């Protein structure tokens, strides 16, 4: 989504693809999460048509969303690195 607007189905497909089925995002948890991000103002909803000419709700990342993403990525990397260090030491 950081690259282009996507609809909910697309997001779930992409997630599965990218993580090569390692991360199984429960489809049922996806939509409440999207709605929460929308309410926080990190995603902006946009209704447009798919390649099959079907109306769908696309989510687009906002400036605030990008900032938040960067922060989250940074903190995740920190945590991951810390976990890796701990594991290496063991």
């Amino acid at each position, binding site marked *: 989504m950081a690259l282009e607007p996507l609809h909910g189905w697309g997001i*779930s497909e992409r997630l599965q693809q990218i993580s090569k089925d390692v991360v199984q995002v*429960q489809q049922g948890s996806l939509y*409440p999460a999207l*709605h929460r991000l929308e*309410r926080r*103002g990190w995603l902006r909803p946009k209704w447009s048509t798919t390649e099959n000419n079907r*109306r769908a*709700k696309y989510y687009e990342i906002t400036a605030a969303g990008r900032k938040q993403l960067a922060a989250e990525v940074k903190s995740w990397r920190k945590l991951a690195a810390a976990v890796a260090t701990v594991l290496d030491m063991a």
Partner: protein
Amino acid sequence: MLSDLAYRLRSVFRRKAVEQELDEELRFHLEQHAAKLASAGMPAEEANRLARLALEGPEQVKERCRDERGIRLWEAMVQDFWQAFRQLKKSPAVTITIVATLALCIGANAAVYSIVDALFFRPLPYPHPKQLVMLVTYKGSPELDTSQDGFEWEAVRDHATLLEPAAYGPTMGTNLATGTSAAYIRQQRISADLFHVLGMPLYRGREFTRREDVPNGPALAIMSYGLWQRVFHADPKIEGRSVILNGVPHTVVGVASAGFRAIPVSDFGSLEQPDIYTPIQPSTEGEGSGDNYGVIARLKPGVSIQQADAQLKTLTREIRAHKGPLPKNHIEEERVISLQSGLVYDIRTGIHIMWTAVILVLVIGCINIAGLLLAQSGRRSRELAMRCALGASRFRILQALLIESMLLAFLGAGAGVLLGRLTLQQLLKLNPDQFGLLGGVPLDARVLLTTGALSFCAALLFGFFPALEASRVDLRTTLGEASRTSAGRRRDYRRHVLVFAEVSLGVILITSAGLLVQTLLSSTSPYPGFNTNHLLVASASLSEPRYAKPAAAARLFRESTNRIEQIPGVQAAAVAMSAPYTRPLNEGLAQVNGQRLAGGTELNYVTPGFFKTLGVKLLGGRWLTEADYSRARRVVLINETFVHFYLRDSNPVGSVITFENQQWSVAGVVNSVQEDNHLSHTVPVSFYPEVYILVAQFPEGLFEMANRWFSPVWLVRTTREDAALPRAMQKALASVDPRLPFAEFRTIRAIRAKTLGPQRYRAWVVSAVSGLAVILAALGIYGLVAQSVSQRTREMGIRMALGADVWSIIRTCTAPAIIVACAGVVCGLIGAAFAATLLKGVVWNVSRFDPRTYALVGVLLIGLAFVASLLPALRLRHVSPARVLQEE
């Protein structure tokens, strides 16, 4: 932050659209997933099923998305609101009872609070009203004297450097000459700077100056805006013009602004707004030797009331030095209080009593409603348990029940405000003078806001405890009980406490009402000393140079009464300085047989026909006649009370009374006539020692002074009511003196009603309110027994089947309620004895601990408790044991 709010608002107000979008979004997802599975060769039906499974149930997902909207609480409240509405509709009898109770209680509160607000809290109609104070004299007891004498005024005017003071007198009738005739207008005498102190600049012209405001100063006048418009047609050259007031030319120096409201002087004269102001020209003699001035002041910037008090304390000592030492054990101290509290000082007790009464009845109403809701929650415990079983949290149930209470409160408040409007109109009619002290008494947004807050508190009061009780649901027992309704010991115990409380409070109220009604009755019912039927009273101002001599006035009185007596339907006519039920002239320095009269006496000049016109009886001696005018010896009549006070041991006829350095001999004794009390703020009307003097023999100096304060009254006895009489009287008077207008035609009963106004409204309000309280208490008892009866019908049926007597069963059902009610009555009577302290100063002629009143209230309430508890219990007579056992 902003996007969050926008999102929530959209969810609330565009709910449908948001729902639709959610539905479409999920449907798209399902279709895509199904299409993907189908393209891999899966049958369409199986693909759809798997897609739904993968999404973990679209409805559940929707519900979780809704949770993300952050408006759950709001939605729950809306839901509860409708649920509450349905619930209230389901039991209309209870709902109507509750709303009607609230409407009556809140209506009474809205009406009385309008008055309280107008008198105590609404800012006075002057700029910076917080700086305005009134000068009062503290005399040791808690009562303050709000009027001042000339010494006090001059000392404050000249030496109180922390204050900007001004003085004023009462509003009196005066004759304004207009061409050949005259108009009766209202005049108030005021000191220099009064307008400045109040912060109300004149519309045009200037105020009186300090140099003009001295004894024998120039005759000046300031007009009200209304008079200037009405009579002088807004004459632009009014300043410098001369107007004739009571026969004396006055030079106009200014016109007050249109919105100016004069300081009302509540205990004397008229409360209506003055038409013209003249300088008070104060002195320390004559009028100034007694407490005849009102003094107000504006605190200088930065000065507190305490600082002003401290300065006045030293000033008091200097005033005393002028007046001579105080009698032993007397305290006298000048102080200031805020102008607002000063203006309502004399009537505050009455208002406080009314206010307390309506708040108490609201509390009783709330207790009653709490009882009803508690009974209902018992009946609803199954429904609530079901909701709990379905997953509602305790908080959620509490919230639902409180919303029900709020809904009830606001329905009640709405009806109450409408009712309050009507009540307020009635209250204002009962006592228009005092309530309209400085303007109208509106039921406006201020009052509505307070009433709304009050209703909110009421809802919490009556809704919280029943809700707390009801939300404490024990699922297992409640649902397990099947169709049986539980008696619930705990709940019963609470309802008993509630009934006990409301009976106690009701007893306190009705006992107070009883004392107030007895006071009113004792003020009006005994023979007032004269015949009050068909007696018309009119006044005319005689404060004119041509009537300065008593002989001239006597001639006017004789001729005009003769003419009036010729009007058809008139039986008799007479003139006196003051009418019954009004304030008489007090003479404090009189002596009888050389003895100083300790309590002073009233003086009244009369025409010889006065006693016959009123129907006063002669108890000894002889009447006064016209013939006494010419006799050299001055004679007077005294009343019975005078004899009772001062001449109990000697023969009154022939006693010698001395005042104004002249001597009068007592020719006869007449019965006493009720008059307005003015000596203390206690009994409204009473009998005072009084001396009646023929006009022609009245001392000259005193006559002129008295006529400045009093407009003499013409009293006319007729055979029937006659609307044309005032005009005929005016014509008769004009034929004697065309420049003398009559004013203020009133029947003697109207005068009595005005004098007793405060008593009547107190008795009326407290009676109405306590009547309501007693009905509520009876309803409470009724409800308690009815509930116990319906809960125990089964038990009673079984007992009866086993051979119990129906009356013994009725006894079992009613006994607890009656015991509780009796305990409430006893407790209430004790409380009433304490509450009676608040009634100190408004209950007279009857002891505050009058055993008859207390006994009567006790018997009445216990009787009522019996009736209220027997009515529902008697239903048990029709219980058929067979049916009950069958149902079992």
